[in-house]
């Protein structure tokens, strides 16, 4: 197992009588993109803000880059980059100025021009942040988290409310962070975002982790039953099987022998979306 950048055991946090986070365990390794997935109100932002050092916790052990975020100081902050869920950039500063302002807070920042390139805002350097589109502002926000050259970036719902093309551009920027060797902790409530970007995923619902793994085998999707469906004589037939190869072989052999037409034949496994909805709704 690679070096652990974030390690959380038994994390708990309540607001009054409401238990927002109920015993969460997490582990994130150096260089991976980790997606923390869940519906609104599941405890994602509470968890990520505890990891960022903004909120205290009621119980559990938390280590981020080897320190307790609740007690970590400026040295530690130099090594993390934060994109908050809601933050308006300074509207009167340009793209270049916004990045230069933040670069000044760090001992060895990345060159501003390089960051502008990385966030795909070349040609917009002298545009004021207030005049950028929502997607461009969010990418500048990511750039301001990146300019200090941190080891670890927190991105809290970076694409919520974006149109499809803005999301794709933001994904490209986030995928580029991995190529820079950064560890990324990403919260999202979009399944496809986690699938597209993450090496590993944990799903939180109602304050507890309900599933974790790679996007491919999350919720034991690989081993789950497959559904073979087709139409025979106008009748829709669905067969659930744990061994689709054998079942298909028998089915098609029979069809060839008897001359039956299997219209619209397909084999489906539950999509990640189905797994996610199943897990988060059963709570």
């Amino acid at each position: 197992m690679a070096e652990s950048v974030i390690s959380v055991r038994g994390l708990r946090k309540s607001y009054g009588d409401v238990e927002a986070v109920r015993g969460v365990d997490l582990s994130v390794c150096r260089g991976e993109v980790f997606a923390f997935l869940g519906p609104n109100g599941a405890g994602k932002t509470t968890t990520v803000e505890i990891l960022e050092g903004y909120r205290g916790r009621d119980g559990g052990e938390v280590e981020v880059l080897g320190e307790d975020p609740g007690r970590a100081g400026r040295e530690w902050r130099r090594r993390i980059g934060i994109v908050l869920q809601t933050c308006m950039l300074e509207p009167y500063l340009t793209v270049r100025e916004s990045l230069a302002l933040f670069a000044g807070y760090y001992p060895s920042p990345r060159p501003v021009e390089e960051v502008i390139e990385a966030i795909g805002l070349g040609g917009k350097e002298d545009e004021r942040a207030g005049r950028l589109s929502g997607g461009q502002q969010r990418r500048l926000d990511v750039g301001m988290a990146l300019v200090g050259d941190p080891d670890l970036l927190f991105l809290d719902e970076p694409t919520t409310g974006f149109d499809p093309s803005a999301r794709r551009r933001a994904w490209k920027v986030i995928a580029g962070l991995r190529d820079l060797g950064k560890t990324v902790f990403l919260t999202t409530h979009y399944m496809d975002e986690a699938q597209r970007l993450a090496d590993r995923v944990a799903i939180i619902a109602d304050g507890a982790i309900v599933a974790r793994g790679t996007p491919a085998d999350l919720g034991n999707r690989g081993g789950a039953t497959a559904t073979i469906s087709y139409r025979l004589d106008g009748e829709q037939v669905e067969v659930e099987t744990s061994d689709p190869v054998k079942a298909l072989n028998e089915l098609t052999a029979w069809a060839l022998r008897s001359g039956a037409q299997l219209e619209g034949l397909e084999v489906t496994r539950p999509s990640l979306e189905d797994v996610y909805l199943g897990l988060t709704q059963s709570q």
Partner: protein
Amino acid sequence: MLVLHQLRYDQKVFWRNPAAVFFTVAFPVILLLIFATVFGDQTIDVGGGVDTTTYYVPAIITLAVVSATMQTLSMSIVISREEGRLKRGRGTPMPAWIFVAGRIGNSIVVALLMLVVVAALGRLLYGVEIPWGRAPDLLVVLVVGAAAFCCLGIALTAAIPSKEAAAPVVNALLLPLYFLSGVFIPEDELPAGVIDFANHFPVRPFFEAFFDAYVHTGGTALAWDHLAVVAAWGAAGLLLAVRYFRWIPRGG
């Protein structure tokens, strides 16, 4: 120097914000021109009688200094806080005091600029003498006043819940004080009880100390008693600011 780095960008933001520039820089100048025109060549019964313009130049500088410090600080900090920028800044290695120092530095730059502009306009347009000989006294009054009103402005942010409330709250506090303190209406037109009342709040003592130093109507140039009231308000503001200042927006 990180403070200068921060101040440089705070200055850019200030001068690019049309509302801030209008109310802090243009508005005091417009008021000076209006008051000088409307009240014309009257004599105001203060310290043996002074020209209207001699009265209004220090009055408008008082207004401009309070506006550049208390008003500008409280409004800009509340807006940055509620839009999440203070919280975001706390997530960087920048020390908290750099942020506060940058904003205070911005206010002081603007306050000094307004002192120069209004004093120069008073001299050029109305022949109001610039009291070069009392520059040290003026500086003391300005330092005490600016420090006090900066502390009050920062303290006030804790009492302002949203960015929409920032301008109404600040104006509701300051506009009556300007009127009651003789900044807008010459004090010989105000009933005696009004000035007595206003003496308990910071604007009037600051105005009086500054007026004495600027116009030098006799007596000791430095009105320590008035400055003590201003400083006491500043100290109270500082305590409240240290105790109640928030970096995090409402509900987040």
